């Protein structure tokens, strides 16, 4: 537990978070590992976790009829995986799959949601941090949509 606390405190996502909140959050955290090719979550399932990737690589995929899964983005060491736990109705919108042996810290979203409901300051802190990640991913998605390397002739 002490080790998890140290990892969380050093992670950029939790940087600057008050110690009392870190103590609360560490109670919702656990170490998990996924082998290469293993599903982490599937579209439509309840989203009750988010993850801090420690090592490895994860693909966010979308199933499309008649073709192989489309990889929308990959995430790796230091990245945060998943925000569906935070936004009703708390279902995964895509599939998550480990592309290689991946070690992460899983955060229990249900547990965190209830703590955020009890302490809105904690909820606001987490929401600010997730908003920043959502904006980064949104901007990257906009650039992807521009298809800047496409044929302009």
């Amino acid at each position: 537990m002490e080790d998890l606390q140290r990892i969380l405190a050093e992670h950029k996502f939790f940087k600057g978070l008050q110690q009392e909140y870190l103590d609360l959050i560490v109670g919702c955290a656990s170490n998990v590992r996924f082998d290469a090719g293993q599903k982490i979550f599937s579209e439509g399932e309840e989203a009750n976790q988010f993850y801090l990737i420690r090592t490895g690589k994860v693909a966010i995929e979308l199933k499309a009829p008649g073709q192989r899964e489309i990889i929308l983005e990959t995430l790796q060491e230091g990245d945060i995986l998943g925000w569906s736990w935070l936004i009703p109705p708390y279902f995964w919108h895509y599939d998550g799959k480990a592309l290689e042996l991946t070690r992460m810290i899983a955060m229990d979203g249900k547990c965190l949601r209830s703590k955020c409901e009890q302490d809105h300051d904690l909820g606001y802190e987490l929401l600010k941090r997730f908003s920043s990640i959502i904006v980064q991913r949104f901007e990257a998605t906009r650039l992807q949509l521009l298809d800047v390397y496409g044929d302009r002739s």
Partner: protein
Amino acid sequence: MATDPKLETLKVEFKRNPMMPWPFRINRVKRETEDTFTIELQPSGDLEEFQFQPGQFNMLYVYGVGEIPISISGDPLQPRVLVHTTRAVGTVTKAMAKLRRGDIIGIRGPFGKPWPIENAVGQDIVFVAGGIGLAPLRPALYEVVEQRERFGKVVLLYGTRTPADVLFRQELEHWRARFDLEVFVTVDRAMSGWKGNVGVVTTLIPRAPFDPRNTVAFVCGPEVMMRFTAIELVKRGVNPNTIYVSLERNMKCAIGLCGHCQFGSYFVCKDGPVFPYSVIKDLLVKWEL
């Protein structure tokens, strides 16, 4: 062997008159991806070498079709072979793609300001390439690799459309295998089965291993990509004065006379194509230009 006086006159004229194309013979045409190819050229008529600096471009003339600017993608330390890589997208490049070994192309050049590699001595270098933008950066990479000990960390961040569009695949593998180069490749879209990164090239910048306070960045790719890359580099802490971008415009004369490539108060052919980001930052967001 007696020298042909007419040829000697032509050689002098080629060096003196930048408007005169010199015939180069195609040695090899290599298909890189579905729409991208590399041509290796050799000067004909006793012109033995073609010296250039990384980042410079030539005007390539397909006889009877037209002339276009293309950056040089070969090794500046191998001046006997002139290498260009381009996409077959317009009338001239489509005609060029049909040429074969032995065919002749007219060359004028080299033109433009090069990548200021000397400014990076003793510092980390980050190359950020997007799509075909890897081609104008390759000569700089060759030169930096050749003088590797003069620089700090050397990082290449390369983004392209799909795994099938990855350019210079063998060389990327070769560079990736070196212990003194950091190479990261990402694609904008991929199907399941691709084991590499998926996401725009800017997403590689926050995690790339370089010291932002001591870094020179060379960026080449579509203009939108370069704009957002520069923003991301500045966000990481890189000084805008040490970020260089290579612009592409409709160049005709290539010597700053005709005005086709005017960009604000600059001519891209003469004042560029390589510019410090800090100099043209404000112009990049003016759509009228």
